[in-house]
């Protein structure tokens, strides 16, 4: 009987160890991809800030032409919400944090009488919302860990068109901001109308007022607004990718540690079971020998 238990334990140890190998590998892969994801954020920053500055200058110098792009109507009838989450699971709380924040936002908007058009990026998002009875108007997926600028363009075009046509009055983004390796936080941001307060650090003071525009602001904004939106979406995708990888690395490190510990406990129990079996066997032999001797 004892030998049977030993076999069962041995099998479990083997399975725990192979799981550990997988989680360890995933941890290492995620860890190796993080620096590249961070380098992409850094490389994107000058462009993103530069474009923000251009937009800001245009808006500040001619608020009248820009009013459609900066003024939020008192009552938002229809809002688009874009939720960025991951394509894959096994990344700790990353997906759920984003998805839940999106769900809350949608509920809030609806409570205020706003119609919501929901768009998602990440394979995990659409099933999540569908299961909860929320209609997903558009699902982008398959690039979340390594977004390209073209992906951001596709999303931005989808978001900008109804806004420019006046069907949608507000565009909101739910995504994870990557502050540092230790701190990532889900944030809700308004993409459209543009938020003027969100100036990059060190705005060029003294510039406003006498900057010339070529062409005039009204015309410039027509081509500038979609590019600016693309740039914001792209930056959010890049940060999301870094946050996803960080979450995955952390989750897999924890899983590896758990597997280690489970393996140790099981090994101990197996050794004990084997020892028990041996002791019992010796007792049986001794008992048998005793019986033979006394029976002689």
């Amino acid at each position, binding site marked *: 009987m004892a030998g049977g238990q030993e076999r069962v334990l041995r099998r479990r140890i083997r399975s725990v160890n192979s799981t550990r190998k997988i989680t360890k590998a995933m941890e290492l892969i995620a860890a190796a991809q993080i620096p590249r994801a961070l380098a992409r954020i850094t490389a994107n920053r000058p462009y993103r800030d530069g474009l923000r500055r251009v937009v800001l200058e245009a808006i500040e110098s001619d608020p009248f032409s820009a009013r459609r792009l900066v003024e939020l109507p008192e009552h938002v009838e229809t809002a688009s919400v874009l939720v960025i989450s991951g394509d894959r699971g096994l990344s700790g709380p990353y997906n759920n944090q984003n998805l839940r924040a999106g769900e809350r936002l949608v509920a809030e908007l609806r409570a205020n009488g706003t119609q919501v058009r929901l768009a998602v990026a990440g394979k995990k998002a659409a099933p999540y919302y569908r299961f909860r009875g929320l209609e997903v108007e558009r699902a982008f997926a398959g690039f979340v860990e390594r977004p390209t600028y073209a992906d951001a363009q596709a999303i931005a075009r989808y978001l900008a068109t109804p806004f420019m046509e006046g069907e949608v009055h507000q565009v909101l983004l739910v995504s994870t901001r990557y502050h540092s390796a230790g701190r990532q936080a889900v944030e809700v941001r308004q993409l459209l109308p543009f938020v003027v307060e969100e100036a990059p650090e060190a705005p060029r003071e003294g510039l406003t007022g006498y900057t010339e525009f*070529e062409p005039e602001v009204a015309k*410039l904004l027509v081509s500038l607004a979609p590019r600016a939106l693309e*740039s914001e979406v792209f930056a959010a995708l890049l940060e999301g990718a870094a946050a996803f990888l960080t979450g995955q690395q952390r989750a897999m490190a924890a899983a590896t540690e758990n597997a280690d510990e489970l393996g140790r406990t099981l090994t101990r129990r197996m050794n004990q079971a084997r020892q028990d079996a041996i002791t019992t066997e010796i007792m049986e032999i001794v008992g048998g020998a005793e019986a033979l001797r006394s029976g002689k």
Partner: protein
Amino acid sequence: MATLTVEVLAPEAVLWRGAAHALVARSSEGDFTVMAGYAPTVGDVVSTVVRVEGTDEGEVRFAVHAGFFAVGPGEAEGETRATVLASVVERVDEIDVGRAQASLERAQAALAAASSSDDPVAYVEALEAVARAELRLRAAAR
């Protein structure tokens, strides 16, 4: 000392940054040349070859596929900073003519396919792709 610093920025990289004598580009209002002391200006850049003249490497040229530019005072005293921002931009001397030719053929095929279909988005995209490939080839040929 009046100086000019030029930056060429793409979404994923600082393509070029450095001191230069002049930046020559084309906006929807016409050609313009930015030199040190240029008035603060913000505008667009149409698809064109942008030239940065008088740098340490001589003249550096970029194929810019539509973007924006901003000119303003830089951080240093007397510095004028000109920034070109474009979602698609490449250094002309790094253009691979063979690849550009292939992508032109691909884009033309896509355009032919899109013009017989009913998808306006695909049509516009194909048009843009053809324009990009043509600009690339034109820039590299010169």
